[in-house]
């Protein structure tokens, strides 16, 4: 059967939300190929994650608990995914286009002799299954076909909704039968702990650019974000200048976000930045240069000095939200 296998992501014992739009993509694909959606959860102590993901309209969840999967390594995850894909007869293997998905799926594709599509934003049937994906920083959209029987896809999760919850699917243990590799070792994961929502699923994102001139000045961006219960982002120039951590970078080579409300503060609006935020529902630009390209994509623009506007805006919003 032409089943679709979704590789779930989890952190701190909880399902990562990026998995949900990936399931929607898988459901859409299975509707075209006539198969079932199966989910694979790899880790050590993943029972709760498996139970959680089973509620989202999938046919079966396979979970593997092993010390080998305690920490993510492409060298152990890839062979396990390959084994699971073969066991369930998957013709499509999908994962979120997160750093883990991007790291592991190409390895899986090579082993399955499968063609791979990165960052799929749509799947459809047009005399055969086709995918859409952006390239050149989102300036071009292409329609691609994968000619191999097995297809491997990373999914741009901002382009798919989360699936509806339903009856829980069967949950089954999966034994990948793997030993720890002798050529790769996990050393550490330094998690940025934050009270703020994750960038990729926040309803509001406030992003700052090089125009903020220092890391300290990013505090006003954080204040505005906190007032709105939003996440904080940054342009690459701000990250390069050391004003903001790399994890905040939005754009072609950073994260792709699509919140309801996006603030671009002191960001000029280079195409590589737009690639990461153009999908936002409402865009507000605050920039002192009236000719900044960001105003060409903004729904609302305010021309002026961010150092005056942002604190004043934050104060006023405190009385409202």
């Amino acid at each position, binding site marked *: 059967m032409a089943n679709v296998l979704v590789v779930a992501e989890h952190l701190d014992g909880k399902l990562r939300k990026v998995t949900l739009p990936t399931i929607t993509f898988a459901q859409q694909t299975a509707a075209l190929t006539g198969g079932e959606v199966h989910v694979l959860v790899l880790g050590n102590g993943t029972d709760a994650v498996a139970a959680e993901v089973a509620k989202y309209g999938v046919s079966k969840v396979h979970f593997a608990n092993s010390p080998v999967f305690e920490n993510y390594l*492409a060298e152990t995850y890839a062979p396990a995914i390959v084994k699971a894909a073969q066991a369930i007869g998957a013709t499509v293997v999908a994962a979120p286009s997160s750093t883990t998905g991007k*790291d592991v799926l190409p390895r899986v594709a090579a082993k399955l002799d499968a063609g791979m599509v990165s960052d799929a934003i749509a799947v459809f049937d047009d005399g055969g299954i086709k995918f859409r994906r952006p390239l050149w920083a989102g300036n*071009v959209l292409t329609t*691609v076909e*994968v000619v191999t029987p097995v297809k491997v896809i990373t999914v741009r999760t901002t382009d798919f909704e989360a699936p509806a919850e339903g009856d829980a699917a069967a949950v089954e243990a999966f034994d990948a039968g793997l030993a720890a590799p*002798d050529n790769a070792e996990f050393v550490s994961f330094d998690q940025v702990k934050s009270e703020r929502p994750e960038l990729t699923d926040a309803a509001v994102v406030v992003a700052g650019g090089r125009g903020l001139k220092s890391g300290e000045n990013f505090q006003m961006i954080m204040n505005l974000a906190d007032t709105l219960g939003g996440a904080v982002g940054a342009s690459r120039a701000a990250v390069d200048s050391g004003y903001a951590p790399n994890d905040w970078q939005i754009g072609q080579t950073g994260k792709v976000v699509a919140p309801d409300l996006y603030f671009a503060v002191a960001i000029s609006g280079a195409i590589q930045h737009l690639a990461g935020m153009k999908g936002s529902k409402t865009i507000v630009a605050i920039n002192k240069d009236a000719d900044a390209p960001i105003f060409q994509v903004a729904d609302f623009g*305010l021309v002026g000095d961010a150092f005056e506007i942002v604190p004043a805006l934050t104060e006023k919003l405190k009385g409202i939200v």
Partner: protein
Amino acid sequence: MKILTTVKRVTDPDMKVKIKPDQSGVVTDGVEYKMNSFDEYGVEEAIKLKEAHGGEIVVVSVGPSSATKEIRTAMAMGADRGILVETDAELDSDAVARVLAEVVRRESPDIIVMGKQAVDSDRNQTGQILASYLDYPQATFAYSLEVADGWATVGREVDGGTATKRVKLPAIITADLRLNEPRYASLPGIMKAKRKPLETLSPSDLGVDIANKVNVLLFEAPEEREAGEIVEDIDTLIDRLKNKAKVL
């Protein structure tokens, strides 16, 4: 230490790409090309490794004959010799990785440093596929790299923070931002690069069938966002967010 690094010729990221009227590709006439930005980090890291450990840097490109320009640029930065696997075909990442795998088998480098992503096709696959074909370990999205005792310790940019991984050489490393500050090719470097050896091979010389697994059928422009309204002041902005966009 023998270091292999790769360079891809890409359209200048600062130029607006145009789609051909028949939607079969992008307009290439009059387009400027340069080395993929992330490959600049890869080449720089290769030079740093050579500076620290000695050895040789081999730079490889898979592409048209004009890609010798990017190979020479890498040589001007400090690479010792070049290999162009010449093809005018538009290859997918898998085909490029299959070609590179044969080059690696011929050259047997200790480490392979690549870019994490090409800024034209934006796929972020080639390094990982290559690692898979060679059964090498991989460390992608590297922001730091240290090599000692036959292992590489790599700091990686990942969602939610940073990770550290150790991989046994030979391994594939792909470069992210912050890994280094790529140097400019100096004038003496450019002069020297002209005399450095550059071998040209074809995929068939390497015994590689370059048939693609993924075909691009259609190129389209995305829907453009319309410019909205420039508001007078903060109060108007708040009013619009509340009453027009209804996001507050």
